């Protein structure tokens, strides 16, 4: 019997919390003598930014990590949150598959292995009005979750603000910020409906979380244990992408029940305006990542029939 701990910083009912619970159950019920204890909500004291070193040093054998925080080690991890590159679950998955060899090589280099990805539903604009025109977006004070979002919104004429997640709800309640760039999921989890009336779908990006495991810890397992992990990872990967579509419709249903208006269409002008703003971010990213970034985007372009 081998006991393995796994850490993530998300709530039990969040999409990542549920995916990881599924993974742990698969392994624990496989009869391979491996018992995973999942520590949700950062209960073990580690945040996403700590996980690369925590897993690399063998402190925690398995962790679920927000891709964006790894950008400081390798900018390839920003591909998931590049604005307006992947608009739906199919495209997000294609993008993931295109970049996967690079992700795997990165974790390998750090003494780890990539088990599966856990995608976020698409980010949109939470606000107290329909944000479907260039004018509506102008000057809107919005909380963003990463560098790409901040730079895109600056270029688009909005006023992005960086806040810690715990400060977001108090700031919304008091009108300190006017909106948030996040998914419908994020808004459901933090009860945004109490403060904001509209979610405008702009199909901004679908960032990824990565679940990675310490290589030595994996190799120390008996063959059937290793197999159980690999099988559970594959099953969870499939489940997560499947769950994504269901999750979006479930979130929308919840939000409509709470009286939130979901705007699924924006004006072509705004679409073009946002694409312009995003192109700067995209170019900078390509410059930062060099050949690797270009290779990922061209492979992705091929699979979805666009050219980058």
């Amino acid at each position, binding site marked *: 019997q081998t006991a393995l701990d796994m850490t993530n910083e998300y709530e039990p009912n969040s999409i990542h919390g549920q995916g990881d619970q599924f993974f742990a159950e698969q392994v624990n019920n496989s009869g391979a003598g491996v018992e995973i204890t999942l520590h949700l909500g950062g209960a073990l004291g580690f945040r996403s930014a700590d996980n690369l070193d925590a897993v690399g040093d063998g402190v925690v054998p398995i962790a679920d990590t927000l891709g964006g*925080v790894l950008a400081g080690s390798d900018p390839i991890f920003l591909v998931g949150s590049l604005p307006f590159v992947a608009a739906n679950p199919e495209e997000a998955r294609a993008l993931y598959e295109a970049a996967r060899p690079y992700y795997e090589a990165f974790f390998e280099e750090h003494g780890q292995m990539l088990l599966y990805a856990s995608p976020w539903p698409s980010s949109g604009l939470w606000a107290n009005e329909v944000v479907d025109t260039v004018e509506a977006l102008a000057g809107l004070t919005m909380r963003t979750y*990463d560098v790409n979002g*901040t730079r895109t919104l600056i270029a688009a004429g909005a*006023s*992005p*603000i*960086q806040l810690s997640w715990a400060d977001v709800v108090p700031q919304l309640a008091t009108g300190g910020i006017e909106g948030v760039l996040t998914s419908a999921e994020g808004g459901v989890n933090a009860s945004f409906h109490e403060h904001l009336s509209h979610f405008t779908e702009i199909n901004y990006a679908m960032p990824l979380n990565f679940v990675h495991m310490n290589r030595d810890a994996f190799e120390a397992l008996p063959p059937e244990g290793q197999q159980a992990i690999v099988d559970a990872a594959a099953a969870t990967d499939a489940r997560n992408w499947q769950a994504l579509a269901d999750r979006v419709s479930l979130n929308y249903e919840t939000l409509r029940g709470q009286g939130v208006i979901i705007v699924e269409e924006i004006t072509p002008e705004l679409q073009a305006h946002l694409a312009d703003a995003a192109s700067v971010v995209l170019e900078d990213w390509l410059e930062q990542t060099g050949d690797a970034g270009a290779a990922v985007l061209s492979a992705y372009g091929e699979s979805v029939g666009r050219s980058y």
Partner: protein
Amino acid sequence: MRRGLACALPEQIPRGGEYGPVITLAKNLSRIGNGAAILALVFMFGHIILEITLRNLFHTSTFVLDEFVGHAVSALTFLALGEALRTGTLIRVSLLHDSVPDSAKRVLEMFAMASALSVGSFALWFVGVSVLRQFERGTTSASIAQIPLWIPEALVLFGLAIFVLQALAGLIGLIFRTPQSEETV
């Protein structure tokens, strides 16, 4: 005012003997660390006020508030450790000390200081390993500022180094001090 500590570290240690310079060095470094911790507090204040002003008057942000202020809190905590140990601000439970004979008290004092020295050295070593690795890898934060991560970790490292030196000085002070001299503290 009587502090919570049964004894702060000796201020003047004539009995440090040949280790006197270690004690003086520890004291000076502790004070420098404390000065840096004060700067960290002032920086925290300034950055938050700047952020509030930017957000409310100019609808923009420094985009690095929680990152920078977080590093300032950790710098403050660790850089002030040495001076806090030296002056006895780091609290401890002195119950047993008050009710045992002087000789046993001295043993307890030495155990306490040796604990601080060993935990401090242990942490110092591994934080040092981490700083070195961050430096070699060139890891940065994922924010817009892309701060090299070895910088904030190095502040923790300096703080721990001062703390370890101060604990060493404290232990030397205890070893070279006769039990009677404790009232001078």
